[in-house]
């Protein structure tokens, strides 16, 4: 509880437009978009990086513009794995198999970047978790 209050105070002090807290400023939006696009760019770089796996094969070789990755359908039941998985687990499946490489931790910045890139290429497609 104490930590929670402290966080609020810190947040309040660090946000200049706190009076209109419901409205994001243009500067905020621009900054957040830039942060996101930077990570998307890192994701695209990883998606085309021959050193992501061990055999030089890159993600984009089979998935131009991340097509046929279907991020909007995750989490979903992957019958070949026998369970419901999130997108990052499928990314790791690809890292291990076609790329003959090592899997990444779910919160590895590289994984976040890959997922950000893959998802950004499907912007506007409606969410449809579980779809096959």
């Amino acid at each position: 509880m104490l930590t929670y209050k402290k966080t609020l105070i810190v947040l309040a002090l660090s946000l200049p437009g706190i009076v209109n807290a419901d409205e994001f400023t243009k500067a905020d939006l621009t900054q957040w978009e830039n942060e996101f696009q930077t990570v998307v760019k890192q994701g695209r770089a990883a998606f085309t990086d021959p050193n992501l796996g061990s055999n030089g094969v890159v993600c984009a070789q089979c998935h131009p513009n991340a097509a046929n990755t279907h991020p909007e359908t995750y989490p979903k039941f992957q019958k070949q794995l026998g369970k419901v998985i999130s997108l990052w687990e499928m990314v790791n499946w690809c890292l291990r198999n076609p790329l003959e490489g090592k899997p990444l931790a779910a919160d590895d910045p590289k994984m976040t970047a890959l997922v950000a890139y893959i998802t950004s290429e499907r912007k506007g497609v409606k969410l449809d978790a579980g779809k096959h």
Partner: protein
Amino acid sequence: MNNSRRDFLKQSGLLLAASTLPLSLVEIAFAKEEDNFSFAYISDAHIQQIKGTQFVRNWDRGLMRAVAEANLLDPKPDFVMFGGDLAQLGKPEEIDHGLEILSALNTKPRFVLGEHDFYLDMGEYWAKKVSEHHYSFDHKGVHFVVLNSILTYDDWNNKWSSPQERMAMMAGLDNPLGSPFMVGEAQRNWLKADLAKVDKKTPVVVFSHSPLQKIYKGWNFWTDDAEQVQALLKPFNKVTVIYGHVHQIQYNQIGNISFHSVMATAWPWPYPSTYAKAEQFLPKLTVEMNRADPFFERDATGWQLIDIATGNTAVHYQLAENKPRTVAFNPKTKRPEDSEYQQQRAVTQNHY
């Protein structure tokens, strides 16, 4: 039906092939038996060197499987074509390794040049070791032309800091820094002169790597001067264009020209329509192939047996993890059609 063709495969039991390849051929009734022949078409092997003598296993296996299966054909096809992208990054090591796998074929192949074979040294090693870049030949009354359709603009060729950088830029299918393919003026002039010697009633079959039609520029499913090449083919009664590069089943009819794509032995590509942001022109005629299952590494890859019967073409797709499909010219509708799925419009899975 021609019974001698039903049993194309020697029952040698090699691989799974004998059971997965019962080829049922669509015979065209008015064809004179002696006019008919077949050839095998293997394409897009993308042999990829890791380092030294290590190559990506998956792509090696795809090509080896196609070679082993093509060797089972009985009667033997008249010839074998390789449709381009033998290498992944144009390296002599990759081309040599690919040639070594192809050397197991019991029929010597002819070659089409792909962009992955070309942009490291602008086709120099290919010309020395593999094949001319463009040429023509005649076989049983059909005139065959092989074009190098993956050329591009000189400004683009010369703007990179190294041959490796140029190759890498063209190797990325979706790389916005790539450049559209073309046949180019010099080769179009050669084609014009080559075709001038051919009777207009002679069936003409053109092999190219890129589609000689415009489908989706973003992935270079495209030839910039496609219309000009088509114009040169227009005066002939029966023309077929067979192309690789797209790693998926496509077919189309434009005027007198039938178009057929071939499969890759390496990996399949999604249809451009699945890229939510793309405006694309996949021929409506095409009944799309099954969606690839990534858990089966040979799924949605394969090779082709192609029949020519009185100048009309039938492509028999030999799909590693799927039922074979046949796309044949229908003389009634005057266009290529899938012999089984044309009416139902779908194989089994929707692409999205």
